[in-house]
């Protein structure tokens, strides 16, 4: 078998392993090593390549952002900011129709601005907001659906681990990607709030009681408690964007700042610190196992020349660039229902990015790469809230086992619809994403 057909056959083999529940990273790693061995035709070059595979992949300056952001997210959870953010939102709009739910979304967005991880945001905000939503009488499905959707803001609003990985794979500027993600992230939050407003008007019994409006003095006081979030966000993202420090250094600043915040707020006793360390360890281990697998697998694909051949082939089909883009988006949406977001990005960007780069969307190459990155970020994040396998749904579900999973599935659907609408909007109007960079 020639190298190209080996690579082509490795896709169904990979899917089979994944469906058999072999961990995704291990599946890619195994197929990558076996595939390279077959392409080389002997074992010596493979053994040579393996000498630096693990250490070389892990000792990456840009990838060190990932564990630092995970650590930052853990510290942010311990800093009590989730409570303060939710209270601030509730004080401001809690008395409106659907206001408590909207406050929860706003708090997720705020938390997402100091946390680069979707699951950490869903878990942290879920713990704070789910009991409150149910206390005021929200329908269980709506409450869990909105928090699962709100959790995705953790990664849509910078900092974002998925964007870091995309930036490395597509060799793009992390600072610019973060800046470009900002407006779509805010749009996501507004879209979710709009969904809540519509749902509670259609089904008034789902929205629970309205709480009494607070006097303005108290509303303003509640806003003051969230200043550390603002300071940390402006320092980290501002510092990265203006180039005062590199993205890796920015992540380090964020981790230290949230660590100090957690310590100052009294959330950092020895027990909690060690639990935060352990969660950072398992989260980082998970990401880097996938990264290692993808490194091996992508080396094999590159050896086989498949990505280039595929890009040339697609370019030669004479399809409209938008047809290719939509095909990719639909691909991500379908696979997102069962696959993990990072694995999808690591597996597909080395194939899709050269393909898309060869197409003419009327944008300069760098803007195209950034726009495509933000679109990919959004569609893979939809995978976190689409049944049957949406990690955020499970995170929220585990906190409220009494809510039937079917209600959660039903509750999250309007938010998925809002995501799809936003993708359409961002495809149709690239300048929504890009205007920040053109300022």
């Amino acid at each position, binding site marked *: 078998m020639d190298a190209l057909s080996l690579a082509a056959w490795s896709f169904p083999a990979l899917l089979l392993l994944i469906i058999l529940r072999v961990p995704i990273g291990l599946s890619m790693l195994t197929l990558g090593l076996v595939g390279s061995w077959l392409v080389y035709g002997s074992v010596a070059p493979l053994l040579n390549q393996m000498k630096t595979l693990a250490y070389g992949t892990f000792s990456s300056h840009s990838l060190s952002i990932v564990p630092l952001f995970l650590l930052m997210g853990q510290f942010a959870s311990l800093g009590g900011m989730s409570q303060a953010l939710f209270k601030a939102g509730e004080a401001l709009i809690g008395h409106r129709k659907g206001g408590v739910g909207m406050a929860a979304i706003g708090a997720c967005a705020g938390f997402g601005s100091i946390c680069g991880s979707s699951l950490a945001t869903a878990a942290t905000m879920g713990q704070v907001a789910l009991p409150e939503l149910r206390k005021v009488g929200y329908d269980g499905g709506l409450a869990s659906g909105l928090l699962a959707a709100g959790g995705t803001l953790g990664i849509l609003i910078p900092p974002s681990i998925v964007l870091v990985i995309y930036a490395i794979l597509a060799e793009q500027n992390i600072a610019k990607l973060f800046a470009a993600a900002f407006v779509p992230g805010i749009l996501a939050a507004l879209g979710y709030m709009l969904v809540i407003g519509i749902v509670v008007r259609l089904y008034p019994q789902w929205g629970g009681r309205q709480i009494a409006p607070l006097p303005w003095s108290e509303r303003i006081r509640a806003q003051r408690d969230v200043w550390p979030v603002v300071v940390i966000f402006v320092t980290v993202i501002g510092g990265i964007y203006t180039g005062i420090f590199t993205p*890796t250094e920015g992540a380090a600043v964020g981790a230290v700042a949230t660590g100090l915040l957690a310590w100052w707020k009294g959330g950092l006793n020895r027990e909690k610190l060690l639990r935060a360390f352990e969660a950072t360890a398992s989260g980082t281990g998970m990401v880097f196992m996938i990264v290692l697998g993808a490194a091996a697998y992508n080396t094999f694909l590159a050896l086989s020349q498949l990505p280039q051949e595929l890009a040339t082939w697609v370019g030669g089909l004479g399809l409209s660039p938008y047809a290719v883009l939509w095909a990719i988006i639909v691909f991500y949406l379908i696979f997102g229902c069962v696959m993990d977001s990072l694995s999808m990005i690591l597996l597909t960007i080395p194939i899709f990015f050269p393909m898309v780069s060869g197409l003419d969307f009327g944008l300069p190459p760098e803007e195209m790469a950034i726009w495509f990155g933000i679109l990919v970020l959004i569609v893979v994040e939809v995978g976190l809230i689409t049944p049957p396998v949406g990690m955020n749904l499970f995170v929220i579900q585990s906190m409220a086992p009494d809510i039937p999973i079917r209600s959660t599935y039903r509750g999250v659907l309007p938010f998925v619809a809002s995501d799809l609408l936003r993708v359409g909007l961002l495809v149709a109007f690239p300048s929504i994403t890009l205007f920040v960079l053109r300022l």
Partner: protein
Amino acid sequence: MSNFIYGTSRFLAWFGALVLTLLAVMSVFSIAGRAFSFAGFGPVPGDFELVEAGTALAVFCFLPWCHLKRAHADVAMLWHAYPPAMRRLILVLVEALMLAVWCLLVWRMGVAMLEYRANGEVSFILQMPVWWGYAASFVPGALGCLVYAWRLIETIGLVKPREGFTAAEGAH
């Protein structure tokens, strides 16, 4: 033995996170030093190299814990549709595969370490021997082989797995 495996993995996870925290603090000092360069301060020399070697060390320390916590990403969509015998077989094969691949990688890493020691290659700024980074990561890497072997023994059913380490968790 079980205590040793779980205790070591937990300790490695803590140690790795501590390394990571120290890297973060060092980066902050480095930025501060750069900002006050007019006053005669400067960035921490070789901070880039230290972050690279430190991140690798931290990741090697994290992997055994991640594996014990079953935190690796997988797709369990059809899992409950498989017959119990098939599920057990898959679990054993996955553990065996993990052990085999990891031992292979750690063996090759050890070979690279010896080669770097022999050729005396050093890093650019700190002139730190490259093999030091490999050696530091080799220790948790080799311990990882033990942990994966233990998990295989558990999965075959020779020893009982620990409570609290049977359900999946993860983060990203």
